[in-house]
Protein backbone atom coordinates (compact mmCIF):
# COMPACT_ATOMS: atom_id res chain seq x y z
CA UNK A 1 0.00 0.00 0.00
CA UNK A 2 1.20 3.45 -0.96
CA UNK A 3 0.49 6.28 1.49
CA UNK A 4 0.96 9.90 0.42
CA UNK A 5 1.12 12.86 2.77
CA UNK A 6 0.34 16.50 2.17
CA UNK A 7 0.36 19.42 4.56
CA UNK A 8 -1.99 22.34 4.07
CA UNK A 9 -1.47 24.90 6.80
CA UNK A 10 -2.24 23.23 10.11
CA UNK A 11 -3.89 20.25 8.44
CA UNK A 12 -2.20 17.00 7.42
CA UNK A 13 -3.78 15.11 4.55
CA UNK A 14 -3.18 11.37 4.41
CA UNK A 15 -3.91 9.64 1.11
CA UNK A 16 -3.80 5.86 1.20
CA UNK A 17 -3.86 4.09 -2.16
CA UNK A 18 -5.02 0.62 -3.11
CA UNK A 19 -6.37 -2.00 -0.75
CA UNK A 20 -6.49 -1.66 3.00
CA UNK A 21 -6.76 -5.21 4.32
CA UNK A 22 -5.18 -7.51 6.89
CA UNK A 23 -1.87 -7.37 5.02
CA UNK A 24 -1.55 -3.62 4.57
CA UNK A 25 -3.35 -2.46 7.73
CA UNK A 26 -0.23 -2.55 9.98
CA UNK A 27 1.71 -0.21 7.66
CA UNK A 28 -1.16 2.28 7.54
CA UNK A 29 -1.68 2.01 11.28
CA UNK A 30 2.00 2.68 12.00
CA UNK A 31 1.98 5.72 9.74
CA UNK A 32 -1.03 7.22 11.43
CA UNK A 33 0.36 6.46 14.88
CA UNK A 34 3.54 8.34 13.97
CA UNK A 35 1.52 11.34 12.85
CA UNK A 36 -0.75 11.31 15.87
CA UNK A 37 1.88 10.51 18.49
CA UNK A 38 1.76 12.63 21.61
CA UNK A 39 4.36 15.21 22.60
CA UNK A 40 2.82 18.18 20.87
CA UNK A 41 3.93 17.17 17.35
CA UNK A 42 0.48 16.09 16.15
CA UNK A 43 -1.16 18.39 13.59
CA UNK A 44 -4.17 20.52 14.50
CA UNK A 45 -6.26 18.56 12.03
CA UNK A 46 -5.88 15.32 10.09
CA UNK A 47 -7.95 14.27 7.09
CA UNK A 48 -7.76 10.82 5.53
CA UNK A 49 -8.57 11.33 1.87
CA UNK A 50 -9.79 7.93 0.61
CA UNK A 51 -10.09 8.86 -3.07
CA UNK A 52 -7.41 6.28 -3.94
CA UNK A 53 -8.66 3.57 -1.62
CA UNK A 54 -10.34 0.70 -3.48
CA UNK A 55 -11.15 -1.69 -0.66
CA UNK A 56 -11.30 -1.73 3.13
CA UNK A 57 -11.61 -4.96 5.09
CA UNK A 58 -12.61 -5.21 8.74
CA UNK A 59 -8.93 -5.18 9.71
CA UNK A 60 -8.59 -1.95 7.71
CA UNK A 61 -11.65 -0.47 9.36
CA UNK A 62 -10.03 -1.04 12.71
CA UNK A 63 -7.18 1.29 11.71
CA UNK A 64 -9.69 4.12 11.16
CA UNK A 65 -11.12 3.48 14.61
CA UNK A 66 -7.66 3.50 16.21
CA UNK A 67 -6.74 6.67 14.32
CA UNK A 68 -9.92 8.42 15.45
CA UNK A 69 -9.11 7.52 19.06
CA UNK A 70 -5.45 8.57 18.75
CA UNK A 71 -6.56 11.89 17.22
CA UNK A 72 -8.93 12.45 20.10
CA UNK A 73 -6.13 11.82 22.60
CA UNK A 74 -3.74 14.12 20.71
CA UNK A 75 -6.33 16.88 20.43
CA UNK A 76 -6.31 16.62 16.63
CA UNK A 77 -9.52 17.22 14.68
CA UNK A 78 -10.15 14.12 12.57
CA UNK A 79 -12.17 13.50 9.41
CA UNK A 80 -12.39 11.11 6.50
CA UNK A 81 -13.39 12.10 2.97
CA UNK A 82 -13.87 11.03 -0.65
CA UNK A 83 -14.87 7.43 -0.02
CA UNK A 84 -15.45 5.27 -3.10
CA UNK A 85 -18.84 3.47 -3.07
CA UNK A 86 -17.56 0.08 -1.83
CA UNK A 87 -15.61 1.74 0.98
CA UNK A 88 -18.56 4.02 1.83
CA UNK A 89 -20.72 0.90 2.06
CA UNK A 90 -18.36 -0.66 4.61
CA UNK A 91 -18.42 2.54 6.68
CA UNK A 92 -22.23 2.63 6.59
CA UNK A 93 -22.71 -1.04 7.29
CA UNK A 94 -20.33 -1.16 10.24
CA UNK A 95 -21.84 1.96 11.79
CA UNK A 96 -18.46 3.74 11.55
CA UNK A 97 -20.00 6.51 9.47
CA UNK A 98 -21.89 7.48 12.61
CA UNK A 99 -18.91 7.67 14.95
CA UNK A 100 -16.31 9.03 12.50
CA UNK A 101 -16.75 12.31 10.64
CA UNK A 102 -17.18 11.24 6.99
CA UNK A 103 -17.40 13.77 4.14
CA UNK A 104 -18.13 13.62 0.41
CA UNK A 105 -14.98 15.51 -0.58
CA UNK A 106 -11.96 17.40 0.70
CA UNK A 107 -13.62 20.79 0.69
CA UNK A 108 -16.47 19.75 2.92
CA UNK A 109 -14.00 18.00 5.25
CA UNK A 110 -12.00 21.23 5.49
CA UNK A 111 -15.15 23.24 6.05
CA UNK A 112 -16.11 20.90 8.85
CA UNK A 113 -12.71 20.98 10.56
CA UNK A 114 -12.06 24.70 10.15
CA UNK A 115 -15.44 26.39 10.04
CA UNK A 116 -13.81 29.81 10.43
CA UNK A 117 -11.86 29.51 7.18
CA UNK A 118 -14.56 28.00 5.04
Amino acid at each position, binding site marked *: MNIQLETLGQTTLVMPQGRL*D*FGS*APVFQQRLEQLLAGGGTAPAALIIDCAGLD*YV*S*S*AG*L*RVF*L*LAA*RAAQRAGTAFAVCSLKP*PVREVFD*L*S*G*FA*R*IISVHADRDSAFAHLQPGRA
Partner: protein
Amino acid sequence: MDHPSVSSRARTAGPSLSGTPSGQLSAPRATRSLRAAVRSVAELLLERPGPYARAFEQLILGLIVLSVVSVGVEALPGLPAGITRALRVGEILVVAVFSFEYLLRLIAAREKLKFVLSFAGLIDLLSIAPFYLGGFDARWLRTLRLLRLLRVLKLRTHILESSVAERTRELAEKNALLEQAQAQINAELGVARALQLAILPATFPARAGCESAARMIPATTMGGDFYDFIELPGGQIGLVMADVSGKGVPAAFFMAVARTNLRGVAPDYVNPGACLARTNTVLCSQNPLDLFVTVFYCMLDPATGALRYANGGHNPPYLRRADGSVEALSGAGGLVLGAMPDVEFPEHQIQLRDGDLLVLYTDGVTEAFNPADEAYGTERLIDEIRAHGAGTAAGLLERICHSVTVFAGAAPQSDDITLIALSWNRTAAGALQ
Protein backbone atom coordinates in the same frame (compact mmCIF):
# COMPACT_ATOMS: atom_id res chain seq x y z
CA MET B 1 17.89 -61.50 9.51
CA ASP B 2 20.25 -61.42 12.48
CA HIS B 3 22.56 -64.11 11.24
CA PRO B 4 24.42 -62.28 8.48
CA SER B 5 25.30 -59.35 10.72
CA VAL B 6 26.46 -61.61 13.54
CA SER B 7 28.68 -63.64 11.23
CA SER B 8 30.19 -60.52 9.61
CA ARG B 9 31.02 -59.13 13.03
CA ALA B 10 32.70 -62.41 13.90
CA ARG B 11 34.74 -62.25 10.71
CA THR B 12 36.02 -58.76 11.33
CA ALA B 13 36.88 -59.60 14.93
CA GLY B 14 39.00 -62.59 13.95
CA PRO B 15 41.83 -61.24 11.76
CA SER B 16 41.75 -57.86 13.55
CA LEU B 17 41.73 -54.77 11.34
CA SER B 18 44.95 -53.31 12.75
CA GLY B 19 46.61 -56.69 12.69
CA THR B 20 47.11 -56.52 16.44
CA PRO B 21 46.74 -59.74 18.38
CA SER B 22 44.51 -59.08 21.36
CA GLY B 23 47.23 -60.01 23.84
CA GLN B 24 49.65 -57.20 22.87
CA LEU B 25 47.49 -54.15 23.00
CA SER B 26 49.63 -51.89 25.19
CA ALA B 27 52.40 -50.89 22.74
CA PRO B 28 50.13 -50.07 19.76
CA ARG B 29 47.81 -48.16 22.09
CA ALA B 30 50.75 -45.99 23.15
CA THR B 31 51.71 -45.42 19.50
CA ARG B 32 48.13 -44.60 18.68
CA SER B 33 47.83 -42.07 21.50
CA LEU B 34 51.14 -40.47 20.50
CA ARG B 35 49.92 -40.25 16.93
CA ALA B 36 46.68 -38.74 18.16
CA ALA B 37 48.61 -36.18 20.17
CA VAL B 38 50.78 -35.23 17.20
CA ARG B 39 47.74 -35.04 15.01
CA SER B 40 46.02 -32.73 17.43
CA VAL B 41 49.12 -30.51 17.54
CA ALA B 42 49.14 -30.52 13.74
CA GLU B 43 45.51 -29.59 13.66
CA LEU B 44 46.07 -26.81 16.18
CA LEU B 45 49.01 -25.31 14.29
CA LEU B 46 47.97 -25.92 10.72
CA GLU B 47 44.26 -26.28 10.30
CA ARG B 48 42.12 -24.77 13.00
CA PRO B 49 41.79 -20.98 12.69
CA GLY B 50 43.00 -19.37 15.88
CA PRO B 51 45.95 -17.68 17.63
CA TYR B 52 48.28 -20.73 17.41
CA ALA B 53 47.81 -21.25 13.68
CA ARG B 54 48.26 -17.51 13.09
CA ALA B 55 51.48 -17.35 15.15
CA PHE B 56 52.89 -20.46 13.43
CA GLU B 57 52.05 -19.02 10.04
CA GLN B 58 53.82 -15.74 10.93
CA LEU B 59 56.87 -17.70 12.06
CA ILE B 60 57.04 -19.65 8.81
CA LEU B 61 56.60 -16.48 6.76
CA GLY B 62 59.40 -14.79 8.69
CA LEU B 63 61.76 -17.74 8.27
CA ILE B 64 61.10 -17.95 4.55
CA VAL B 65 61.99 -14.30 4.05
CA LEU B 66 65.02 -14.63 6.34
CA SER B 67 66.38 -17.68 4.54
CA VAL B 68 65.95 -16.17 1.09
CA VAL B 69 67.73 -12.99 2.23
CA SER B 70 70.52 -15.09 3.71
CA VAL B 71 71.07 -16.79 0.34
CA GLY B 72 71.71 -13.34 -1.11
CA VAL B 73 74.01 -12.32 1.73
CA GLU B 74 76.04 -15.57 1.52
CA ALA B 75 76.75 -14.79 -2.12
CA LEU B 76 78.53 -11.57 -1.15
CA PRO B 77 82.36 -11.90 -1.48
CA GLY B 78 84.63 -11.48 1.52
CA LEU B 79 82.18 -12.02 4.36
CA PRO B 80 83.66 -12.12 7.86
CA ALA B 81 83.86 -15.65 9.28
CA GLY B 82 81.52 -14.72 12.19
CA ILE B 83 78.70 -13.79 9.83
CA THR B 84 79.19 -16.91 7.72
CA ARG B 85 78.92 -19.00 10.88
CA ALA B 86 75.81 -17.13 12.01
CA LEU B 87 74.22 -17.70 8.63
CA ARG B 88 75.06 -21.38 8.84
CA VAL B 89 73.41 -21.67 12.27
CA GLY B 90 70.42 -19.74 10.99
CA GLU B 91 70.13 -22.13 8.06
CA ILE B 92 70.14 -25.11 10.43
CA LEU B 93 67.40 -23.54 12.52
CA VAL B 94 65.30 -22.74 9.45
CA VAL B 95 65.66 -26.26 8.13
CA ALA B 96 64.83 -27.68 11.57
CA VAL B 97 61.60 -25.71 11.76
CA PHE B 98 60.72 -26.50 8.13
CA SER B 99 61.41 -30.17 8.72
CA PHE B 100 59.27 -30.16 11.83
CA GLU B 101 56.50 -28.50 9.86
CA TYR B 102 56.90 -30.99 6.98
CA LEU B 103 56.62 -33.96 9.33
CA LEU B 104 53.62 -32.40 10.99
CA ARG B 105 51.91 -31.98 7.65
CA LEU B 106 52.80 -35.49 6.62
CA ILE B 107 51.29 -36.90 9.81
CA ALA B 108 48.22 -34.72 9.53
CA ALA B 109 47.64 -35.65 5.87
CA ARG B 110 44.99 -38.30 5.39
CA GLU B 111 46.57 -39.51 2.16
CA LYS B 112 50.34 -39.36 2.71
CA LEU B 113 51.46 -40.15 -0.81
CA LYS B 114 49.08 -37.64 -2.28
CA PHE B 115 50.53 -34.98 0.04
CA VAL B 116 54.13 -35.86 -0.82
CA LEU B 117 53.42 -35.66 -4.56
CA SER B 118 51.26 -32.54 -4.37
CA PHE B 119 52.68 -29.19 -5.49
CA ALA B 120 52.77 -27.89 -1.93
CA GLY B 121 54.34 -31.12 -0.67
CA LEU B 122 57.07 -31.05 -3.34
CA ILE B 123 57.90 -27.40 -2.64
CA ASP B 124 58.12 -28.15 1.08
CA LEU B 125 60.42 -31.08 0.40
CA LEU B 126 62.61 -29.13 -2.04
CA SER B 127 63.10 -26.39 0.52
CA ILE B 128 64.73 -28.77 3.00
CA ALA B 129 66.10 -31.64 0.88
CA PRO B 130 69.30 -29.79 -0.33
CA PHE B 131 70.38 -29.36 3.27
CA TYR B 132 70.20 -33.08 3.95
CA LEU B 133 71.77 -34.03 0.61
CA GLY B 134 74.54 -31.59 1.55
CA GLY B 135 77.15 -32.66 -0.98
CA PHE B 136 76.39 -30.23 -3.81
CA ASP B 137 75.92 -26.54 -3.72
CA ALA B 138 72.18 -26.16 -3.75
CA ARG B 139 72.04 -22.49 -2.96
CA TRP B 140 69.80 -21.70 -5.94
CA LEU B 141 67.47 -24.44 -4.81
CA ARG B 142 67.09 -22.63 -1.50
CA THR B 143 65.59 -19.67 -3.38
CA LEU B 144 62.76 -22.04 -4.23
CA ARG B 145 61.68 -21.38 -0.66
CA LEU B 146 60.09 -18.22 -2.04
CA LEU B 147 57.50 -20.50 -3.56
CA ARG B 148 56.58 -21.46 -0.05
CA LEU B 149 55.13 -17.97 0.33
CA LEU B 150 52.50 -19.03 -2.18
CA ARG B 151 51.83 -22.06 -0.07
CA VAL B 152 51.33 -20.03 3.10
CA LEU B 153 49.00 -17.64 1.28
CA LYS B 154 47.08 -20.60 -0.04
CA LEU B 155 46.88 -21.96 3.47
CA ARG B 156 45.41 -18.68 4.61
CA THR B 157 42.68 -19.02 1.95
CA HIS B 158 42.07 -22.52 3.17
CA ILE B 159 41.63 -21.34 6.75
CA LEU B 160 39.28 -18.61 5.56
CA GLU B 161 37.29 -21.12 3.56
CA SER B 162 37.05 -23.52 6.44
CA SER B 163 35.78 -20.76 8.73
CA VAL B 164 33.21 -19.79 6.09
CA ALA B 165 32.20 -23.44 5.85
CA GLU B 166 31.85 -23.55 9.61
CA ARG B 167 29.63 -20.45 9.62
CA THR B 168 27.54 -21.97 6.84
CA ARG B 169 27.13 -25.11 8.87
CA GLU B 170 26.11 -23.09 11.95
CA LEU B 171 23.58 -21.19 9.85
CA ALA B 172 22.16 -24.42 8.48
CA GLU B 173 21.83 -25.76 12.03
CA LYS B 174 20.06 -22.58 13.15
CA ASN B 175 17.80 -22.78 10.12
CA ALA B 176 16.88 -26.33 10.96
CA LEU B 177 16.04 -25.24 14.51
CA LEU B 178 13.92 -22.39 13.18
CA GLU B 179 12.11 -24.72 10.84
CA GLN B 180 11.48 -27.08 13.70
CA ALA B 181 10.10 -24.23 15.84
CA GLN B 182 7.95 -23.06 12.94
CA ALA B 183 6.57 -26.55 12.43
CA GLN B 184 5.73 -26.72 16.13
CA ILE B 185 3.98 -23.34 16.04
CA ASN B 186 2.03 -24.41 12.95
CA ALA B 187 1.01 -27.64 14.62
CA GLU B 188 -0.15 -25.75 17.71
CA LEU B 189 -2.04 -23.24 15.59
CA GLY B 190 -3.67 -26.17 13.84
CA VAL B 191 -4.83 -27.53 17.18
CA ALA B 192 -6.10 -24.09 18.24
CA ARG B 193 -7.96 -23.82 14.94
CA ALA B 194 -9.54 -27.22 15.41
CA LEU B 195 -10.62 -26.24 18.94
CA GLN B 196 -12.04 -22.98 17.63
CA LEU B 197 -14.07 -24.81 15.00
CA ALA B 198 -15.16 -27.43 17.50
CA ILE B 199 -16.97 -24.91 19.71
CA LEU B 200 -19.28 -24.03 16.83
CA PRO B 201 -22.54 -25.94 17.15
CA ALA B 202 -22.84 -28.86 14.77
CA THR B 203 -26.62 -28.97 14.72
CA PHE B 204 -29.58 -26.66 15.03
CA PRO B 205 -31.86 -27.37 18.03
CA ALA B 206 -34.62 -29.69 16.88
CA ARG B 207 -37.80 -27.72 16.29
CA ALA B 208 -40.77 -28.80 14.23
CA GLY B 209 -41.04 -26.71 11.07
CA CYS B 210 -37.40 -25.62 11.12
CA GLU B 211 -34.78 -27.03 8.84
CA SER B 212 -31.36 -25.52 9.22
CA ALA B 213 -27.81 -25.98 8.02
CA ALA B 214 -24.55 -24.23 8.79
CA ARG B 215 -21.33 -24.26 6.87
CA MET B 216 -17.89 -22.82 7.47
CA ILE B 217 -14.90 -22.96 5.14
CA PRO B 218 -12.01 -21.67 7.27
CA ALA B 219 -9.30 -19.58 5.67
CA THR B 220 -5.73 -20.82 5.97
CA THR B 221 -4.90 -18.23 8.62
CA MET B 222 -6.88 -18.30 11.82
CA GLY B 223 -10.00 -16.23 11.36
CA GLY B 224 -12.64 -14.83 13.62
CA ASP B 225 -15.94 -15.85 12.03
CA PHE B 226 -18.48 -17.64 14.17
CA TYR B 227 -22.12 -18.59 14.21
CA ASP B 228 -24.26 -19.91 17.01
CA PHE B 229 -27.66 -21.40 17.79
CA ILE B 230 -28.83 -20.52 21.29
CA GLU B 231 -31.80 -22.10 23.05
CA LEU B 232 -33.82 -19.30 24.66
CA PRO B 233 -36.60 -19.37 27.24
CA GLY B 234 -40.08 -20.03 25.82
CA GLY B 235 -38.83 -22.31 23.04
CA GLN B 236 -37.33 -19.45 21.06
CA ILE B 237 -34.03 -19.86 19.28
CA GLY B 238 -31.30 -17.29 18.93
CA LEU B 239 -29.30 -17.26 15.70
CA VAL B 240 -25.92 -15.54 15.61
CA MET B 241 -23.67 -14.72 12.66
CA ALA B 242 -20.51 -12.81 13.51
CA ASP B 243 -17.14 -11.76 12.17
CA VAL B 244 -14.23 -10.45 14.25
CA SER B 245 -12.01 -7.78 12.68
CA GLY B 246 -8.60 -9.00 11.67
CA LYS B 247 -7.14 -12.48 11.73
CA GLY B 248 -4.79 -14.72 13.61
CA VAL B 249 -4.60 -15.61 17.26
CA PRO B 250 -5.92 -12.22 18.54
CA ALA B 251 -9.04 -12.51 16.36
CA ALA B 252 -9.54 -16.13 17.46
CA PHE B 253 -9.35 -15.17 21.13
CA PHE B 254 -11.72 -12.26 20.69
CA MET B 255 -14.08 -14.55 18.82
CA ALA B 256 -14.13 -16.94 21.78
CA VAL B 257 -14.71 -14.04 24.21
CA ALA B 258 -17.49 -12.57 22.06
CA ARG B 259 -19.21 -15.89 21.52
CA THR B 260 -19.08 -16.81 25.21
CA ASN B 261 -20.42 -13.43 26.33
CA LEU B 262 -23.22 -13.36 23.80
CA ARG B 263 -24.21 -16.92 24.67
CA GLY B 264 -24.20 -16.08 28.37
CA VAL B 265 -26.15 -12.85 28.00
CA ALA B 266 -28.74 -13.99 25.43
CA PRO B 267 -31.14 -16.01 27.70
CA ASP B 268 -31.57 -12.98 29.98
CA TYR B 269 -32.85 -10.67 27.26
CA VAL B 270 -36.19 -10.74 25.53
CA ASN B 271 -35.08 -8.08 23.03
CA PRO B 272 -32.25 -8.72 20.55
CA GLY B 273 -31.19 -5.05 20.56
CA ALA B 274 -30.82 -4.97 24.34
CA CYS B 275 -28.93 -8.26 24.18
CA LEU B 276 -26.40 -6.79 21.73
CA ALA B 277 -26.10 -3.59 23.78
CA ARG B 278 -25.27 -5.60 26.91
CA THR B 279 -22.79 -7.82 25.03
CA ASN B 280 -21.18 -4.71 23.56
CA THR B 281 -20.67 -3.15 26.98
CA VAL B 282 -19.05 -6.33 28.29
CA LEU B 283 -16.81 -6.65 25.20
CA CYS B 284 -15.67 -3.02 25.43
CA SER B 285 -14.39 -3.73 28.93
CA GLN B 286 -12.46 -6.84 27.81
CA ASN B 287 -10.81 -5.50 24.69
CA PRO B 288 -7.14 -4.62 25.16
CA LEU B 289 -6.36 -4.93 21.44
CA ASP B 290 -9.18 -2.69 20.22
CA LEU B 291 -10.69 -5.41 18.09
CA PHE B 292 -14.36 -5.42 17.23
CA VAL B 293 -16.90 -7.88 15.96
CA THR B 294 -19.82 -7.51 13.59
CA VAL B 295 -22.84 -9.43 14.88
CA PHE B 296 -26.22 -10.18 13.39
CA TYR B 297 -28.49 -11.56 16.09
CA CYS B 298 -32.06 -12.71 15.63
CA MET B 299 -34.61 -14.48 17.81
CA LEU B 300 -36.99 -16.84 16.11
CA ASP B 301 -40.18 -18.14 17.59
CA PRO B 302 -40.47 -21.47 15.75
CA ALA B 303 -44.13 -21.80 16.72
CA THR B 304 -45.25 -18.56 15.10
CA GLY B 305 -42.51 -17.66 12.63
CA ALA B 306 -41.98 -14.28 14.32
CA LEU B 307 -38.41 -13.14 13.79
CA ARG B 308 -36.92 -10.24 15.74
CA TYR B 309 -33.43 -9.04 14.97
CA ALA B 310 -30.77 -6.43 15.65
CA ASN B 311 -27.63 -5.81 13.64
CA GLY B 312 -24.24 -4.76 15.00
CA GLY B 313 -22.51 -3.72 11.79
CA HIS B 314 -22.94 -7.04 10.00
CA ASN B 315 -23.91 -7.81 6.42
CA PRO B 316 -27.73 -7.96 6.33
CA PRO B 317 -29.00 -11.51 5.83
CA TYR B 318 -31.25 -12.40 2.93
CA LEU B 319 -34.76 -13.78 3.11
CA ARG B 320 -36.04 -15.82 0.21
CA ARG B 321 -39.79 -15.67 0.34
CA ALA B 322 -41.89 -18.65 -0.68
CA ASP B 323 -42.97 -16.69 -3.76
CA GLY B 324 -39.37 -16.66 -4.97
CA SER B 325 -38.51 -13.02 -4.20
CA VAL B 326 -35.35 -12.25 -2.24
CA GLU B 327 -35.11 -9.37 0.20
CA ALA B 328 -32.40 -8.16 2.58
CA LEU B 329 -33.08 -7.72 6.29
CA SER B 330 -31.69 -4.25 5.92
CA GLY B 331 -33.40 -2.40 8.74
CA ALA B 332 -31.11 0.22 10.25
CA GLY B 333 -28.21 -1.39 12.07
CA GLY B 334 -26.01 -0.33 14.96
CA LEU B 335 -22.29 -0.08 15.43
CA VAL B 336 -19.95 -3.06 15.44
CA LEU B 337 -19.53 -4.52 18.95
CA GLY B 338 -16.47 -3.72 21.00
CA ALA B 339 -15.71 -0.35 19.38
CA MET B 340 -17.55 2.00 21.74
CA PRO B 341 -19.55 1.43 24.90
CA ASP B 342 -23.14 2.53 25.50
CA VAL B 343 -24.44 2.38 21.97
CA GLU B 344 -27.95 1.33 21.03
CA PHE B 345 -28.95 -1.30 18.53
CA PRO B 346 -32.21 -0.67 16.67
CA GLU B 347 -34.60 -3.60 16.70
CA HIS B 348 -36.73 -4.92 13.87
CA GLN B 349 -39.33 -7.60 13.46
CA ILE B 350 -40.62 -9.53 10.47
CA GLN B 351 -43.05 -12.37 10.10
CA LEU B 352 -41.79 -15.49 8.35
CA ARG B 353 -44.24 -17.06 5.98
CA ASP B 354 -44.70 -20.70 5.14
CA GLY B 355 -41.70 -21.93 3.12
CA ASP B 356 -39.49 -18.87 3.69
CA LEU B 357 -35.74 -19.39 3.77
CA LEU B 358 -33.35 -17.19 5.73
CA VAL B 359 -29.67 -16.92 4.72
CA LEU B 360 -27.07 -15.49 7.12
CA TYR B 361 -23.50 -15.04 5.92
CA THR B 362 -20.18 -13.30 6.57
CA ASP B 363 -18.26 -11.11 4.14
CA GLY B 364 -15.95 -14.04 3.41
CA VAL B 365 -18.67 -14.99 0.90
CA THR B 366 -19.22 -11.63 -0.80
CA GLU B 367 -15.58 -10.60 -0.53
CA ALA B 368 -14.14 -13.78 -1.97
CA PHE B 369 -11.83 -12.54 -4.74
CA ASN B 370 -11.04 -14.21 -8.03
CA PRO B 371 -7.60 -14.10 -9.72
CA ALA B 372 -8.72 -10.93 -11.58
CA ASP B 373 -9.23 -9.30 -8.15
CA GLU B 374 -13.00 -9.02 -8.52
CA ALA B 375 -15.19 -9.64 -5.48
CA TYR B 376 -17.93 -12.29 -5.52
CA GLY B 377 -20.38 -9.60 -4.38
CA THR B 378 -23.96 -9.62 -3.21
CA GLU B 379 -25.49 -9.88 -6.70
CA ARG B 380 -24.07 -13.35 -7.31
CA LEU B 381 -25.16 -14.43 -3.85
CA ILE B 382 -28.72 -13.22 -4.44
CA ASP B 383 -28.75 -14.96 -7.86
CA GLU B 384 -27.78 -18.27 -6.27
CA ILE B 385 -30.42 -17.92 -3.55
CA ARG B 386 -33.05 -17.11 -6.15
CA ALA B 387 -31.96 -19.92 -8.48
CA HIS B 388 -32.13 -22.48 -5.68
CA GLY B 389 -35.91 -22.06 -5.57
CA ALA B 390 -37.65 -24.13 -2.92
CA GLY B 391 -34.72 -26.50 -2.34
CA THR B 392 -33.45 -27.47 1.09
CA ALA B 393 -31.39 -25.26 3.40
CA ALA B 394 -28.42 -27.66 3.25
CA GLY B 395 -28.69 -27.83 -0.53
CA LEU B 396 -28.57 -24.04 -0.77
CA LEU B 397 -25.37 -23.81 1.30
CA GLU B 398 -23.80 -26.50 -0.85
CA ARG B 399 -24.77 -24.51 -3.91
CA ILE B 400 -23.41 -21.18 -2.63
CA CYS B 401 -20.11 -22.71 -1.45
CA HIS B 402 -19.66 -24.38 -4.81
CA SER B 403 -20.41 -21.14 -6.63
CA VAL B 404 -17.94 -19.15 -4.50
CA THR B 405 -15.23 -21.80 -4.89
CA VAL B 406 -15.64 -21.89 -8.67
CA PHE B 407 -15.64 -18.08 -8.81
CA ALA B 408 -12.46 -17.73 -6.71
CA GLY B 409 -10.64 -20.33 -8.81
CA ALA B 410 -6.92 -20.33 -8.06
CA ALA B 411 -7.07 -17.18 -5.91
CA PRO B 412 -6.20 -17.95 -2.27
CA GLN B 413 -9.02 -17.80 0.27
CA SER B 414 -8.12 -14.92 2.57
CA ASP B 415 -11.13 -14.98 4.87
CA ASP B 416 -13.44 -17.49 6.54
CA ILE B 417 -16.55 -18.28 4.54
CA THR B 418 -19.47 -18.82 6.92
CA LEU B 419 -23.14 -19.43 6.17
CA ILE B 420 -26.36 -20.42 7.91
CA ALA B 421 -29.58 -21.25 6.08
CA LEU B 422 -32.88 -21.74 7.90
CA SER B 423 -36.19 -22.63 6.33
CA TRP B 424 -39.46 -22.32 8.22
CA ASN B 425 -42.61 -24.24 7.53
CA ARG B 426 -45.81 -23.13 9.20
CA THR B 427 -47.79 -26.32 8.59
CA ALA B 428 -45.12 -28.49 10.18
CA ALA B 429 -44.72 -26.07 13.09
CA GLY B 430 -48.49 -25.84 13.58
CA ALA B 431 -49.06 -29.58 13.30
CA LEU B 432 -47.12 -30.09 16.48
CA GLN B 433 -49.14 -27.69 18.59
